């Protein structure tokens, strides 16, 4: 039983990291109708930014975390202006392929700067300590920190999207892009905003994953894959869906590795994907037939 509880804790922390990563993708798809594969590399690059600021410059983790968010937010805006805006009227496959190209380019860039042999540690608060529950259950402070950060990030995100006028313009654009234009909403401003927030969420996920397990050039791939499945699972474009699906997937992944077999962990996300596509293709929080 305690082993189960322990896996729930690990799964929750992993799932929340994934949810942050997926929320960025969900937002981009929801408002801008683009699946940005380069998001995975923003996660990775965000990890490196946090590494440079905390380990390199010796500043506090939260400074590095904020720097990762801002830097990747700006990177997101640059991507929108330099790639996606140009491809906006092109078929979705063109955008997808372009984002894959950007994924590769950012990967090569990071390799050039930081190399591929070393893991880069990020000093995170609570790295050493843990709370022990009974004999066997331990909750690492670092995981408590990431869970707390995730909750805070989602609280801010919720506030921005549902309690500010900027959020209203984003939601309006998502639900009726042309009508939103008729309301005087500037498409480009919303696009920049959405790409900024999505990039920042990627940076946040990277800083947290890097804080738990070092920063490395290939760290963007698994979260990207999981995030893609999460947004399909949660309902394309749904933030709450991303959070719940992220948690479910993270926990399921951990339980499978632990109870079924370490080699089978990777099966979980794809099995979930298949089942979702067959049973509820619109995802948990997607409305049937709303989005083609």
């Amino acid at each position, binding site marked *: 039983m305690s*082993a189960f509880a*322990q*896996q729930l804790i*690990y*799964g929750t*922390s*992993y799932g929340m*990291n994934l949810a942050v990563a997926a929320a960025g993708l969900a937002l981009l798809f929801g408002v801008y109708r683009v699946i940005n594969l380069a998001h995975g590399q923003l996660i990775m690059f965000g990890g490196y930014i946090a590494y440079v600021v905390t380990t390199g410059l010796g500043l506090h983790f939260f400074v590095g975390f904020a720097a990762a968010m801002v830097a990747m937010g700006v990177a997101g805006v640059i991507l929108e202006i330099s790639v996606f805006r140009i491809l906006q009227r092109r078929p979705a496959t063109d955008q997808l392929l372009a984002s894959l190209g950007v994924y590769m380019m950012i*990967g*090569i860039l990071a*390799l*050039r700067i930081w*190399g*591929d*042999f*070393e*893991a880069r*540690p990020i000093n995170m608060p609570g*790295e*050493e300590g*843990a709370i022990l529950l009974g004999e066997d259950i*331990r909750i*690492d402070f670092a995981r408590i920190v990431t869970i707390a950060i995730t909750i805070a990030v989602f609280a801010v995100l919720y506030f921005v999207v549902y309690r500010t006028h900027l959020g209203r313009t984003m939601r309006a654009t998502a639900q009726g892009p042309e009508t939103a234009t008729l309301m005087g909403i500037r498409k480009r401003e919303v696009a920049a905003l959405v790409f900024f927030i999505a990039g920042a969420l990627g940076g946040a996920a990277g800083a947290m*994953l890097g804080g*738990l*397990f*070092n920063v*490395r*050039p*290939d*760290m963007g*791939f*698994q*979260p990207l894959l999981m995030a893609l499945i999460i947004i399909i699972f949660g309902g394309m474009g749904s933030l709450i869906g991303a959070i719940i699906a992220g948690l479910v997937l993270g926990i399921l*992944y*951990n339980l499978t*590795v*632990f109870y079924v077999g*370490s*080699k089978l*962990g*990777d099966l979980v996300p794809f099995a979930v994907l298949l089942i979702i596509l067959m049973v509820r293709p619109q995802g948990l929080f997607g409305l049937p037939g709303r989005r083609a």
Partner: protein
Amino acid sequence: MRGSVKKAFVGAAVAAGLAVGGSAAQAEDVFKFGGVFTLSGPASFLGLFEEAAVRLAVEQFMKGDCIVEAIPAQPCEGGGLKIGDKKIPIEWKAYDDVSEDKKSIDAVTRLVEQDGARAIWGPRMNSAVLSAASILDPQSIISICAICSSPAMTVGRKWGHDITDTGVIEKHAISKFISESPERLKEHGIDPKIFEGRKKTGFIGRNELYTVHGSIGWEEGLKQWGGKYSYSDADKVLFPQGTTDFAPFVAKLAEQKPDIVMMDSYIVPDMLAIMKEMKKQGLDFETGKIVLLGNDVLMLQFLVDLAKKEGINMSSGYVWGWQEHNPAQDPATLARVEKYVKIYNEKYGSTEVGNSSPFDRGAYDAAIWFLYGVQAAGTITDNAAIVKAWRSLKINGLRGPENQFFVRPDTGEVTGQLMATEYIIGVKDDKVFYTGINYRDDLFFGPYVYGDKLPK
């Protein structure tokens, strides 16, 4: 793009002597030697140095400054391979496979069919090794690898050469070490209490063939050396490539409550992350809760330094591994290494290849050894003669004196597998050190070493 990509496609270094003859030289006047390496992408760190070392070996051979000596002696006069009275230049050409099997096989095919290579170095990945074998073996093309660490290079193959150990052989060595008698350990200043009362072993690595071979060697070894330790193959923990959160995998390992953990990974970021998480989950090698065993990458000084930077102390006396390279060598070997390292570092130190490490030295050894072999055969076209002559040579190389191929005790056949010596290494005061214990002849047993076919 990485410079190395361009480099690979341009066709890499052509030896100096070739300039005179140029492309007009006829096939039998040039010895064509090709390679397939991962020169770009995340796995390029496994390919860049190997390609660089082989290229350097060709250049040094053409210059007449081989550094490595053959036993019995072979001339290294410069200008090419000395075949009869002629000097035959060596042409080296390498392709980048970007760590993709398909590109590997394309490159192998191109080297054989278009470039007319008589011997091919690489590819490295296990799956590519097997596919390449199916192209190369039927055409009697010699294949060589100095970092493959795979039984697939030699077992059941006539033309394959593995100039390093394999994941199986090295596990035979480390399992032997932990099964040593207290007396032997004491002799070498190792406290036998480290292993006292330990029984259960656990195994963690990335889900790939190297690790699967490693776990087989580990299980074979534990049995071979007296069965003091238990191991369950069903319990081995294999994590997928690209894993970011190691917690569930380490938890699965911790649940087995092992006394000894074999961490079979050569991916530095993975290793550091696993070690960090092991400490958190009570698999503590700093206090001796467990003994942590790792491989030759774990026992690299730079890894110990990196670990220290991350707050991981490997100097507790409970962390052990091996190296194929004796860190405390005889003066003649040291002199060779010193000379080589100077040349290598001057050439590559400031490039993306980087400074010399034990791995490029092994590749350099192997390349010079092979060229001596061709020379000793007195032919550049008869591969059967080349293989026979090469395998009967030994070398005094950069890894140490008297390197030789493994001779099967049952048939007396000389195989293409290097008879690697494994030196047991520990860490003390943040420095790796050689324990004085090393193994060689004992390690060569089992179907993965000299079977006629790779077991399924």
